[in-house]
């Protein structure tokens, strides 16, 4: 049976891997962007990003000083028996990783602004648990810095709004954010559900690798069209001009009330840090993304 210390150890490894290296699909996408850019300053930005990635990996240092806040998405098999508190194990992992890697202490009280110093606090780390069939366990981690997160948007559109209105809202948000969320970004879009679910979907959408197509044909088409339109804006890497404003657009949807149409947008910076682990037999294994 999986123990607390095993889970904690795995979660520390996930945090370490995510903070210091980028998934292959993201590195590939950045390299491809560099070959597509003709603007010298844009190329220089992408080149600096790629050189930084190599150095971070070699030194095992966090890619960015904003090591963000970790978000854990847990798929928990309803038949899986755990003899420990999962949330607590993840919190202990965050505390340990903060010391060990180290991570910057980013978690503060929203009103007093007092920093907890541990990246653990009231409601932190954020853990979303989804119950699934069977005895499995999967943990997906996304690290989110504030530069990108601060440009999150929620629109409650008219239920009669058409696809064009949705796209317009997404593109306006990308244009308004310009260079601030550290482009080229990955843009997560949540459509439907409710206000809270749309926001959650916009984040969960970021988990899907850039080389994995949306299984929903309509959404896949919208993602493609939005990506091309966003890259026509000319914002470019770090907002200094160029062809690469987004690495990808990821859309997720859920059914919603007939009288509403929630739309949420969430940015992930080019340093799109994530990691996953899955229970294989009795062992929780980190999967190289």
């Amino acid at each position, binding site marked *: 049976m999986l123990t607390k210390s095993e889970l904690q150890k795995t979660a520390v490894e996930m945090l370490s891997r995510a903070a210091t290296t980028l998934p292959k699909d993201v590195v590939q996408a950045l390299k491809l962007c560099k070959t597509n850019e003709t*603007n*010298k*300053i844009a190329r*220089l*930005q992408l080149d*600096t*990003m790629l*050189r*930084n990635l190599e*150095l*971070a990996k070699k*030194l095992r*240092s*966090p*890619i*960015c*000083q*904003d*090591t963000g806040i970790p978000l854990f998405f847990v798929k928990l098999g309803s038949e899986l028996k755990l003899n420990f508190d999962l949330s607590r194990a993840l919190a202990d992992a965050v505390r340990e990783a903060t010391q060990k890697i*180290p*991570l*910057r*202490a*980013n978690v503060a009280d929203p009103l007093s602004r007092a*920093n907890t110093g541990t990246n653990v606090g009231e409601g932190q780390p954020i853990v979303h648990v989804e119950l699934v069939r069977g005895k499995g366990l999967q943990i997906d981690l996304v690290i989110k810095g*504030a*530069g990108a997160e*601060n440009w999150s948007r929620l629109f409650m559109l008219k239920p009669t709004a058409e696809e064009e209105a949705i796209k317009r809202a997404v593109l306006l948000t990308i244009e308004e954010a*310009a*260079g*601030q969320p*550290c482009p080229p970004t990955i843009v997560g879009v949540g459509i439907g559900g409710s206000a809270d679910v749309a926001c959650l979907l916009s984040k969960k959408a970021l988990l899907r690798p850039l080389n994995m197509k949306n299984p929903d044909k309509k959404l896949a088409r919208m993602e493609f069209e939005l990506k091309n339109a966003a890259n026509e804006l*000319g*914002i*470019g*890497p*770090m*907002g*200094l*001009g*160029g*062809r690469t404003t987004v690495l990808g657009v990821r859309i997720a949807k859920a059914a919603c009330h007939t009288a509403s149409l929630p739309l949420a947008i969430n940015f992930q*910076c*080019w*340093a799109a840090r994530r990691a996953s682990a899955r229970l294989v037999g009795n062992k929780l294994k980190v999967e190289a993304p």
Partner: protein
Amino acid sequence: MAKLIELRPPLSDQKIKSLKAGDIVSLSGTIVTARDKAYARALDLLRSGKKLPIDLRNGVVYHCGPLVRKTPRGPKIVSAGPTTSARLNSTQVEFVKRTGVKALVGKGGVSEDAARELARLGCVYLTFTGGAGVLAAQAIEKVEKVFWQNLGATEALWVLNVKNFKPLVVAIDTQGNNLYLHRKI
């Protein structure tokens, strides 16, 4: 690629005015980090006629909240890329006016209004690639001093000696050119 321009603080008006948007810069010498809380405290002090613990006149301020590892030999900066400068928009101009800073280093630029005022004040805006924290940390030769640690390591004033901190891009120059506003695909 444009020629690499070397900058060494203290910076002269002449040197700053010669910089053009799009120029690539390498910075060596003393720079000081400051972000949200440090700006607020600095302005509180300066408005009441008090002095800052370090003179910033003709100096360089880096919008950065470094990631610091404690070691027996003192603090070691592990990752130190730029933070979003726009968070400081409301006090940016007053800060530059009161401190006499000649160059800001950050990411994302400042508001259009602030950019105009900075140009008038003869202060240039340089940018380093956001997220490239390890490369930036590699350019730090030495932590000279750290002030206001009670604001927390992220928000403190770190006085850093950097060597060949590059590539920095002149994003907003003193002639009113602004790469964020006049983007070229």
